[in-house]
């Protein structure tokens, strides 16, 4: 059996670069989740009342529910198009470890759908009257949390490839697994907004990220192989 001329690092970079470059050719796909996120979060002050104390109470919950929903919205695009045009078959047969390629793919997906949420966080925090010194913790928590959501979501997306339109099933599958992210993300944000140390919740988010980054690509690669059968 022959070995390939392309190393692991180069292969991951190619997969990553391909997805990022494709996304830039379809700009609306990238902007959709972040616009959705900002819209949900900024509609609350308009719908409820602009009273600062009320907004501060609901802000952590609103931000994290919006982030969760917007991540779910973006998940459908992670693998579906590649399945339909045969790219996923070719990735499986590239001779490179599929889990590693899916890691690169998920990373690209996070950069395109999760990172914009982190960058939009200051805007959302201002709209919800969050104190300025809580923004840093919010961004860090979103950075860790959206990472977990992308990697857990990749397993869900891979598992639902076999169904014709798997988006409802995908949400049902991923939501329970995403609950800890919602809980600890909102907790970290809440603590920071009260001026208390949020280290504990952030560390738990970090631990979840470490766990999902290492295990999810393996699970996703098995799920992809099953879906291709």
């Amino acid at each position: 059996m022959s070995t390939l001329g392309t190393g692991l690092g180069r292969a991951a970079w190619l997969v990553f670069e391909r997805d990022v470059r494709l996304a830039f050719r379809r700009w609306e796909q990238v902007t959709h989740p972040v616009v959705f996120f900002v819209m949900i979060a900024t509609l609350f002050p308009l719908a409820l009342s602009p009273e600062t104390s009320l907004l501060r109470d609901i802000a952590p919950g609103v931000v994290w529910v919006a982030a969760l929903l917007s991540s779910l919205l973006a998940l459908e695009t992670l693998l579906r198009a590649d399945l339909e045009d045969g790219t996923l078959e070719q990735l499986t047969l590239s001779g490179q470890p599929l889990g590693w390629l899916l890691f690169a793919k998920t990373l690209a997906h996070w950069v395109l759908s999760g990172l914009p949420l982190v960058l939009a966080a200051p805007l959302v925090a201002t709209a919800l009257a969050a104190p300025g010194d809580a923004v840093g913790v919010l961004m860090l928590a979103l950075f860790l949390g959206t990472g977990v959501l992308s990697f857990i979501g990749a397993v869900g997306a891979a598992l639902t490839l076999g169904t014709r339109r798997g988006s409802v099933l995908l949400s049902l599958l991923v939501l329970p697994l995403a609950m800890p992210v919602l809980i600890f993300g909102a907790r970290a944000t809440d603590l920071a907004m009260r001026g208390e140390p949020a280290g504990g919740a952030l560390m738990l988010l970090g631990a979840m990220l470490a766990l999902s980054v290492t295990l999810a690509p393996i699970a996703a690669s098995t799920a992809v192989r099953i879906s291709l059968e």
Partner: protein
Amino acid sequence: MPETPAALLEAENLQLWRGTRHVLRGLSFHVAAGESIHVRGPNGAGKTSLLRTLAGFLWPEEGRLLWNGADVSQDRDGFAADLAYLGHENALKADFTPLENLRYATGLRHPPTAGTFESVLARLGIGAQQDLPARVLSAGQRRRVALARVVLARARLWLLDEPFTNLDVLGVEALSGVIAQHVAAGGIAILTAHADLELPGISPRRLELT
């Protein structure tokens, strides 16, 4: 079929079920280096299932597949590095040009060498379209780009599922030439086509599925 000692690919007693349908019923065959096989049979006879089994997408209930004498289920990625698969879908991104598509697809296997993409595309008759997005290419032109990917994969085993779909006379001729060259260099080509095909330059052995 006579067993040749030089058999590179060996299928032993492949049994494959799809739901309640027994698709491959104890199929055994040997392919030596430099051989081409034309898998024939009516629609639904299991031609695609056979190729997908050989590519490792489908797992046969029984039987095994040997490549170079080693069971392929022991080293899936190593076997994949030796094979190039052309499925029903062309695996092209509509927003990318043929050159970009090839860069990402074959780059996963080998670092590109200057000019090879262009020369293979020209050989398959789509050199003039290499910088257009795949979206605007015709079905036959997209098929040719997908075939260019197979050629550039530098794999010994080609699994081509209906490679002649959408190709015109010149396309069939170009593809036959490419397959003939691959086989002459010691490669293996296994292709499906439901009809009898006149392929200039190659005389594939027939494998009938019923």
